[in-house]
């Protein structure tokens, strides 16, 4: 119980923001008399999630499950491959020279513009959405990890080399630990990008998922379920971000990435 | 010492720029080889034009006069470059300012961070109609969309950098009765520069993506707009000509940020030193 109170006290500002936001939203719609098909109230929106008669029109569980699986797989792949590629690029200057321009080129392209190509090469389903999420979210991890791996003080590097440390030892014992804050920054950025990427994949071609549901509702001018999907998507992003933050505190208890009182 | 001596950065601006370019001279070659591979793949695998045109046909569309598709490329290219530059400037400045405010006050941090994560998790394409309804067509909406796409990395990285100061150092200066402002200006901010620049590098390509997505949604000019119209008629050469230009803009902007990083922080290594 004490712990619950402590948690609440620590996070009261965040809770206040969320509640305040919902409150203002509700008021604005009611006061300005905005029609439901333009902007529904939070109460109407949530009723499509929780009230059985309305919620049963849509197979929420299947759609949430699909998107969740896509994000989980996509994010794991992105995190591991991203860090791995960054390590490879730090290890070998030659590979870095080749890979860096290519990924910068690709990362400047809005993936949605390649929709017809993606449909051709990957088809539709979970795997293509995972791939698109990967393509969108792996650049920040690579860039941040490389920065972290290389931001080691010259003196320290000179010292260990003088002590005949091997390249491998330098990497594992010095560079990687040093780069953890950078890696976690990268993971936080990629977490939300992964969610976005999965949804973009679902927009491009899908038969289920929160992105599918969002677009379907939008097309039929069913604005409340559309907003409900939107809220679920951002809750997904928030949860992932929160998960990374918790992971960060566990892996690096000595670091503060956010101010503590 | 047995290892080779790295090229030390010279102290002049031109020296630093030259060194950075020299270190990265392979970049144009790599890009060129990529285009060659693309060209050969299209020819060898006989890929149909509506799927993937060859880079040559894309460039042909761009450079040779097209009687039935007479696009004013320079107008559209400059519109996109303008949108990219304005959004990059706005995103960097506002993003860094937001992060500083968040580092300053825990209350603001706790209130704003969930909001930013919330905004950032929404695919911009999904909320495009809403944004358009409020702000209408035009360059402002275009830049706003780019901002919403690209501001998050800058904020996260900068905030991380501002908070990443060693405890001992903080304790020491506080013991010496340094004011909060002094701690910030002399310790936290310089310490966070590497993080800020890395954030700006990520932001650079995302600004390009955001500017193009902004053009998809809210503009009637620009490379993004050409892509949209050409998608309707399945006219793929101008689509890919635009995409090539867009990615080159991204590479150049990324390069500019890298060069600035070297200039501002010559002591810092964010890229491997040749050994």
């Amino acid at each position, binding site marked *: 119980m004490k712990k619950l109170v402590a948690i609440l006290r620590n996070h009261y500002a965040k809770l206040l923001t969320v509640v305040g936001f919902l409150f203002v939203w509700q008021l604005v719609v009611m006061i300005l008399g905005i*029609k*439901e*098909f*333009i902007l529904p109230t939070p109460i109407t929106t949530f009723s499509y999630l929780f009230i059985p008669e309305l919620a049963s029109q849509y197979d929420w569980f299947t759609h949430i499950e699909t998107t969740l699986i896509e994000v989980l797989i996509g994010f794991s792949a992105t995190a591991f491959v991203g860090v791995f590629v960054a390590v490879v690029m730090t290890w070998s200057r030659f590979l870095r020279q080749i890979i860096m321009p290519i990924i910068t080129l690709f990362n400047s392209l809005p993936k*949605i*513009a390649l*929709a*017809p*190509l993606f*449909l*051709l090469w990957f*088809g*539709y389903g979970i795997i293509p959405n995972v791939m698109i999420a990967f393509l969108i979210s792996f650049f920040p991890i690579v860039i941040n990890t490389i920065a972290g791996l290389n931001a080691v003080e010259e003196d320290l590097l000179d010292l260990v080399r003088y002590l005949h440390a091997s390249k491998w030892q330098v990497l594992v014992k010095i560079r990687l630990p040093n780069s953890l804050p950078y890696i976690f920054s990268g993971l936080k950025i990629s977490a939300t990008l992964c969610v976005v990427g999965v949804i973009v994949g*679902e*927009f*491009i*071609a*899908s*038969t289920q998922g929160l992105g*599918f549901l969002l*677009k*379907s509702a*939008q*097309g*039929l*001018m069913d604005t409340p379920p559309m907003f409900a999907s939107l809220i679920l998507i951002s809750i997904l992003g928030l949860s992932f971000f929160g998960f990374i933050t918790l992971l960060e505190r566990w892996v690096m208890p000595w670091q503060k990435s956010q101010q503590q009182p | 010492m047995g290892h080779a001596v790295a090229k030390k950065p010279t102290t002049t601006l031109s020296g630093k720029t030259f060194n950075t370019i020299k270190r990265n001279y392979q970049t144009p070659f790599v890009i060129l080889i990529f285009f060659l591979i693309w060209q050969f793949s299209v020819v060898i695998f006989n890929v*149909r034009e*509506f*799927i993937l045109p060859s880079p040559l046909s894309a460039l042909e569309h761009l450079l040779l006069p097209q009687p*039935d*598709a*007479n*696009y*004013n490329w320079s107008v*559209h290219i400059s519109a996109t470059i303008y949108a990219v530059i304005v959004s990059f400037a706005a995103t960097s400045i506002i993003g860094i300012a937001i992060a500083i405010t968040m580092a300053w006050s825990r209350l603001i941090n706790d209130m704003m961070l969930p909001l930013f994560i919330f905004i950032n998790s929404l695919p911009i394409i999904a909320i*495009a*109609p809403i944004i*358009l*309804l409020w702000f*209408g*067509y035009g360059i402002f909406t275009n830049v706003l969309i780019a901002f919403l796409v690209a501001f998050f990395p800058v904020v996260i990285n900068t905030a991380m950098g501002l908070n990443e100061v060693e405890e001992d150092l903080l304790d020491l200066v506080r013991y010496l009765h340094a004011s909060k402002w002094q701690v910030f200006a002399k310790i936290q901010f310089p310490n966070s520069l590497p993080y800020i620049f890395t954030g700006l590098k990520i932001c650079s390509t995302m600004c390009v993506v955001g500017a193009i997505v902004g053009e998809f*949604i809210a503009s*009637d000019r620009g490379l993004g*707009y*050409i892509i*949209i*119209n*050409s*998608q*309707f*008629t*399945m*006219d793929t050469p*101008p689509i890919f000509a635009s995409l090539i230009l867009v990615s080159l803009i991204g590479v150049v902007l990324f390069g500019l940020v890298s060069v600035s990083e070297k200039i501002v922080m010559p002591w810092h290594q964010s890229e491997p030193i040749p050994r």
Partner: protein
Amino acid sequence: MKAKIFTFFMVLAVLTVMAGGEATALTKVNFQLNWKITGDHAPYYVALKKGWFQEEGLDVNIILGQGSGYTVKVLESGKAELGISDAPVPIKGIAQGAKIKIVGIIFDKHPNCMFFWKDSGITKPQDMAGKTVAVPAADGHKVMFPAFAKQIGIDPASVKFLNIEPAAKVSALATKKADIVFELYTGKPFMEKAIPADQLGAILWSDYGFNAYAHSIIARNEVIANNPDMVKKFLKAAYRGWDYTLKNPEEAIAILAEYHPINITDYVANLKVVMDFFKTERYRKYGIGYIDPARMEDTINIVGQYMGIAINFKPEDAYTSEFLPDPPYKYDF
């Protein structure tokens, strides 16, 4: 004395300029399109370029669109006075409280179509049961599908829908990731870029009795009440633009190309197919834009039955023909 005369004439001159200025002040009109530029948007640019809107005293700002639903929202929030929207959508909007009315028709024959590979064995629309259909979620086809399904006698749930980005329509069919693609028949020239004409199959919904109304021009009730002249003048110039475009398609597209980066050859092909949907006896007899009361009532009933909304208004409340050009522009094809 001289000073007084001089001042008198100066004041007179100023008043004349001011009065003249007042007389030539144009009324600003925001016209919300239904999508990005397509061939059937050329007429409005023709009217703009040839000064026909100006002749009617209107300063028209043509705004690119985001779908029929978006147009309804834009009009409802007062950001535009008139717009283009696929008839079922504003009808549904009116049932949900939107204060808009349909004031003119664009396509007279319904352009909804399904494309498929001929070798897939599909010969009639009922064959789509059990197949995968690719269509963008916001597309009119998806919205009206339950109605069409009932009409041809298949269960709407027997079709598996693949939501796609509009840009991926051709790719979806060409790569056989979907068996069928719903697209307007006016998109045929672009389908043929990917699928040879002799292998591309197309079935028009209207050939199987689907006769609801499609693209139409809508206006805000507030504008109709307070500024009916504006609506009348707009439609006159707009349909004049249509009349000219139907007679001079190549020139119309050339004019469109002055405002937007488009491929002229492709858009002319697109426009020529559009023209086919204007070649009806109704338009020959009554003029372009004519609203058939029986057909409109049918459309409203279809929306009520298949889009799950209560029709709580009379048909006359959803549309009005009073602003159509008089004399009408008859299409003598």
